[in-house]
């Protein structure tokens, strides 16, 4: 695959001499208890430019942006907009000052149309007739070149389109500074391209964009300037045109050499750990799939083409039709009736906070969630040992903050994922179902997850469900492409043309 998938418009935009920043952060500090999430951060945002924020998981990017968007208040330091100091009491104040943020989980009303969502909560918005409403929103969308049907219902839209609606909401509220926290994590490459074009167009109209992402090639392609955050401090600011390679950027970010490649040595293939035979039902049609110990099989496709149903049936969340799913050689029913806590199947779900962990419990209890049988002594639970093992896992996987009593929701996205992975591998699985395992993870954490999944092949087979084709090509032995509940193709990654064949199959085109 090429290094840069996104084509940057051919223009260099140096910062004009003596330009005055629209937003200026000075010595901003934010603590959560003992954790210093942001330590004396000074940062300038200029109009008409895209600033990328780069940093490891838990570096403090989201915290910094939440302060700018009025969700948190700085402990010390000042924020200036147009040269005047501001103190935001809520996100309303921030929006009034022209600062808007697109959060990762969209805040839209599913049963309403795009136009209604955009005008929701606006003064006078209630009394405007639908035609007028749609005309206004449509005008706005055309102005910024956002291709979205303003009369469509949200529930009918793809993730990428929903994101455009969130952007429209901010534009309608006259936001001049738009913040995006990992906007591309849920998008297909196609949609990402479209988002980037929209962002460029917005900067041409004088808007400022702050963009957080862990995908380096995106950052290099998109940004006018890059600020690197490490452990709550600004590590430095870079000019993207002066960056030689992804690896260079990555090592600046992490502070040590990063390879960005994993070396996949073939492993001897053993017994099948998953067999799906002619499964029809639950929205799937005639699905056949086999995963053997020692191999990684990736399932790719545009979100919503049956991947979720497949995973739910395999992992026991819903019941598949009889005699279609066999795990470790046993029929589904028998397997789940008799499965043990270790040396069996484990599932690393995409929904980390809602499904894989208990949000209001600490890391010890969250370790126990799926391993409790291993800590049971008769009817009792050996909490001491669980605490010791949690501490060990925190050290081994470098989970921050390193306190066993931190609650799940307090962890940054990347660290929570490491915690889930640590727990599931602790069970010495024979079959691993990993769903978007590196979504939201920084480069070194991604590399580590990849390495651990490859290592796990020594005793396990892996079913990898991912939206990241690069990941699938890096890790998998075979790639299954799903389209409308069917597996349209099963491609071995050993063949050179596989990479180019995936795209058409994802769109349902059979040569």
């Amino acid at each position, binding site marked *: 695959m090429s290094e840069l998938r996104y084509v940057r418009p051919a223009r260099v935009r140096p910062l004009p001499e003596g330009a005055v920043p629209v937003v200026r952060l000075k010595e901003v500090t934010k603590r959560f208890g003992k954790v210093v999430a942001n330590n004396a951060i000074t940062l300038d945002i200029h109009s008409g430019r895209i600033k990328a924020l780069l940093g490891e998981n838990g570096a403090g990017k989201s915290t910094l942006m939440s302060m700018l968007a009025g969700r948190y208040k700085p402990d010390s330091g000042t924020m200036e907009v147009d040269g005047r100091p501001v*103190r935001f009491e*809520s996100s309303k104040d921030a929006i009034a000052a022209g600062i808007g943020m697109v959060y990762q989980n969209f805040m839209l009303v599913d049963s309403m149309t795009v136009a209604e969502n955009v005008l929701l909560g606006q003064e006078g918005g209630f009394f405007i007739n639908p035609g007028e409403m749609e005309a206004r929103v449509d005008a706005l969308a055309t102005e910024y070149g956002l291709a979205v049907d303003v009369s469509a219902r949200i529930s009918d839209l793809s993730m990428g389109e929903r994101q455009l609606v969130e952007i429209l909401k901010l534009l309608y509220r006259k936001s001049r500074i738009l913040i995006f926290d990992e906007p591309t994590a849920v998008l297909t490459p196609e949609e990402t391209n479209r988002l980037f074009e929209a962002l460029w167009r917005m900067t041409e109209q004088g808007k400022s964009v702050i963009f957080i992402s862990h995908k380096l090639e995106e950052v290099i392609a998109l940004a006018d300037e890059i600020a690197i955050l490490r452990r709550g401090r600004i590590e430095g600011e870079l000019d993207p045109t002066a960056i030689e390679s992804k690896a260079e950027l990555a090592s600046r970010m992490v502070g040590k050499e990063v390879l960005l490649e994993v070396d996949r040595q073939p492993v001897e293939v053993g017994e099948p750990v998953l067999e799906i035979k002619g499964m029809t039902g639950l929205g799937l049609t005639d699905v056949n799939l086999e995963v053997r110990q020692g191999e990684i099989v990736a399932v790719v496709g545009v979100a919503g083409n049956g991947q979720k149903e497949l995973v739910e049936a395999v992992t026991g969340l819903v019941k598949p039709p009889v005699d279609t799913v066999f795990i470790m050689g046993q029929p589904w029913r028998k397997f789940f009736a008799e499965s043990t806590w270790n040396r069996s199947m484990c599932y690393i779900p995409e929904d980390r906070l809602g499904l894989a962990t208990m949000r209001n419990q600490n890391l010890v209890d969250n370790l126990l969630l799926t391993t409790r*049988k291993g800590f049971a002594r008769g009817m*009792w639970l050996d909490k001491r040992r669980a605490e010791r093992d949690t501490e060990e896992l925190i050290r081994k996987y470098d989970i921050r903050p390193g306190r066993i009593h931190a609650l799940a929701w307090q962890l940054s996205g990347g660290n929570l994922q490491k915690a889930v992975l640590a727990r599931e591998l602790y069970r010495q699985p024979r079959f691993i179902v990993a769903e978007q395992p590196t979504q939201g993870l920084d480069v070194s954490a991604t590399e580590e997850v990849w390495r651990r999944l490859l290592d796990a092949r020594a005793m396990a087979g892996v079913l990898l469900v991912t939206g990241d084709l690069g990941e699938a090509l890096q890790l998998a032995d075979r790639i299954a492409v799903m389209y409308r509940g069917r597996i349209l193709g099963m491609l071995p990654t050993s063949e050179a043309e596989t990479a180019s064949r995936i795209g058409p199959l994802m769109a349902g085109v059979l040569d």
Partner: protein
Amino acid sequence: MALKIRKRDEPWKWGALVIFLGALLFSLGVSCLLLAGQGKDALHGMFILWEGSFGNLWALEGALLKAIPLFLCSLGVAVAFRMQIWNIGAEGQFALGAIGATWMALSFPGLPWYGLMPLMFAMAFLLGGAWAFIPAVLKLKLRVNEIISTLMLNYIAILLLDYLVFGVWKDPTSFGFPMTPEFTSGAVIAGIGSSRVHWGLLFCAVVGVGLWAFMRFTRLGFELKASGEGARVARYAKIRYGLLTMFVMGLSGGFAGWAGCIETSAVLNRLQPSLMVGYGYTAIVVAWLARLEPLNIAFGAFLLAALRVGVENLQLELQIPAAFGVIMEGMILLTVLAGQFFLTYRIERAPREGGE
């Protein structure tokens, strides 16, 4: 000066206690207004309330006595609430417990206490638990909402109790009053020393500590806590949610059943309709106020029991309606619940326009 509402970045450490005391003061304040509205001397009323609940040994004993059934019912309710199963049927399960204990007491009148008591407690637990088991099965098999079914079963339980004391178990020598014969001495829980407080208090302490240890140190207790996060997480963690639901409801009903057993045996010494004074409903208030923690439940049960005793005193001395106590109870719960708002939000002064 403008005030603004802001979300807290971190939870408020002493918030729960401050809110509780604040809500209590607020409720007492409103009660004063209510008294004043009736043309009574409000401050004098508050003094009588205090006198009646904590002012003397007799009052304290009364409060402890009422706290015992309240504590057990509330503990049961809290176990179910922990799992987000809304058992509001403690009242009915309490009645079934009383019926179970009475059944044993009337069937084996000759047994000494060490033979009869275990039978009574076991049967009370069994019947109370079985009464709660019905809604659990209905919920799992037919998806019947447990709030409705537990509530409805309360009425059936009370009617059942009435049927027994008006009919088959009626004491022939009671001059037509609906009550069973008095229990034999083996079926009566004795007082501690010469006080009115009985050994049921010790039983409560044992059960409370036992439940705390169960929730904290056992695997089942952990699974219970995890299931409180929702059926999907339970499914992910391979917790047998259905089985656990039945277990928890059985336990919950059993605790209420024990409360019924103790109250019948120690306080009334017989079964009669006046047993049912709404402990099962107040228990829900206590459980919520205590945020489902056993130790807090002990305090909460004592506090609301004292309030009951105090209001009874107030009623006698100032001739105010009996509803007054219920109003106060409801008000405390409402203000505490409303006060939870301040755990996640704070009110602060907004800076004046134009910045500083």
